[in-house]
């Protein structure tokens, strides 16, 4: 992996979104990944619809939570994702109103990624932002800087929040992951969370995945 990488500066990441009072982080994590994959394969950055997943992914549970792996299947089975403009976010479940004619992106498959953070970094630099799930310990009060909670406080087994890895690097010799969150820009560093990289902190390496666009 290169020593640092940031997909934001390469135009592969849409603006930070806000999930509101709804446990829909899984949908934001997945659309962020598909946005990146589509940009890398087709050269166009489109902001994609989370609401489509809330309404039409019947395996997941909308605001009560969901899993990225199920969401990829739903996108594949539905026939793609509409854009944010065409199917805008409401923050609560509605009747599914997906229209195949309005779908602007599709995916062919999804893959699980390595648990080795060095390999994850290499994958990210070459192939794009990665959907991951983490233990959200301390995030309620996070403001800035690189978080590195003690392992017993932030167990990799208690995963409860899905986010998007968009880059990595070092700040004053401290390695970090740059993480796009979905709690608006008035949280963290303009909506981003920085987490220590290299020791599986908060389970960042346990549930990494990506869509595949051929």
């Amino acid at each position, binding site marked *: 992996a290169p020593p640092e990488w940031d997909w934001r500066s390469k135009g592969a990441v849409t603006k930070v979104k806000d999930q509101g009072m709804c446990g829909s982080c*899984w949908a934001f994590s997945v659309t962020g990944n598909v946005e990146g994959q589509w940009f890398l394969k087709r050269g166009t950055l489109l902001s994609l619809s989370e609401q489509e997943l809330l309404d039409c992914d019947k395996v997941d549970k909308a605001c009560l939570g969901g899993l990225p792996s199920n969401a990829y299947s739903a996108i594949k089975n539905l026939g793609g994702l509409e854009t944010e403009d065409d199917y805008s976010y409401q923050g609560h479940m509605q009747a599914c109103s997906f229209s195949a004619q309005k779908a602007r992106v599709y995916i062919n498959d999804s893959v699980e990624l390595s648990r080795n953070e060095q390999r994850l970094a290499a994958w990210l630099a070459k192939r794009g932002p990665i959907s991951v799930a983490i233990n959200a310990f301390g995030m309620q009060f996070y*403001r800035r800087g690189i*978080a590195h909670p003690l392992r017993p406080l932030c167990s990799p087994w208690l995963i409860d929040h899905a986010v998007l890895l968009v880059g990595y690097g070092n700040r004053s010799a401290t390695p970090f992951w740059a993480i796009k969150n979905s709690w608006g820009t008035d949280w963290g560093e303009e909506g981003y969370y920085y987490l220590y990289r290299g020791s599986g902190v908060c389970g960042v390496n346990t549930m990494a995945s990506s869509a595949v666009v051929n």
Partner: protein
Amino acid sequence: PAPAQPRAVVARAWRPLDPELLGAARFALKMYNQGRAAGAQAVLGAVQGRVRREGQGSLYTLEATLEEPQCHEPTVCQLPVSRKTLLCSFQVLDELGKHMLLRRDCGPVETRVTDDGNETLKYVLPGLGRNSLSQDFSVKMASIFQKFMHTYNRTYESKEEAEWRLSVFASNLMRAQKIQALDRGTAQYGITKFSDLTEEEFRTIYLNPLLQSEPGQKMHMAKSVEDP
């Protein structure tokens, strides 16, 4: 854990019962009684609660006493006769008039007759100690809270609700300090837009418990990235 304080301290900060809270409480009771025969259903006793609104959703946090019907058959009784009063905590989410019970936590409570002859519930809730704050500290905290409300455009429906949120806010500042002290990186923790939420509320509204509890679809492993 925060020091235990008499629940009455907190209860005063809660909203008195209004039809909206009662509606949520009745929904929680309906869920509680689901599957029970008519004669075996619990009934609502005292109810208190608070509501947090955002967008088109309202989250009700309720405390209620439920009276279980007298049980005459010992082999099927869930509770001994002397413990027929339950204290329940409920969280009910209302989105566009559709209710959802997010949390239900009930346990028996001891009741006893006090000197004035009224039946009073004796129980405790971990929370911020009223006496643990000096007056000076309280004033400073209130000022910081005002700033928080201004920054994040927060309004509360009543003075009682605001007082309750202030106590949550103060407790959260202490939690943030502890997290700060235990962090090994360069992160700074402190006041955020979620600082007026209890940990439970934050988890319920914003996090995703399914990530650790459900297996999900099987995916195949990605090929490693080759050396360019």
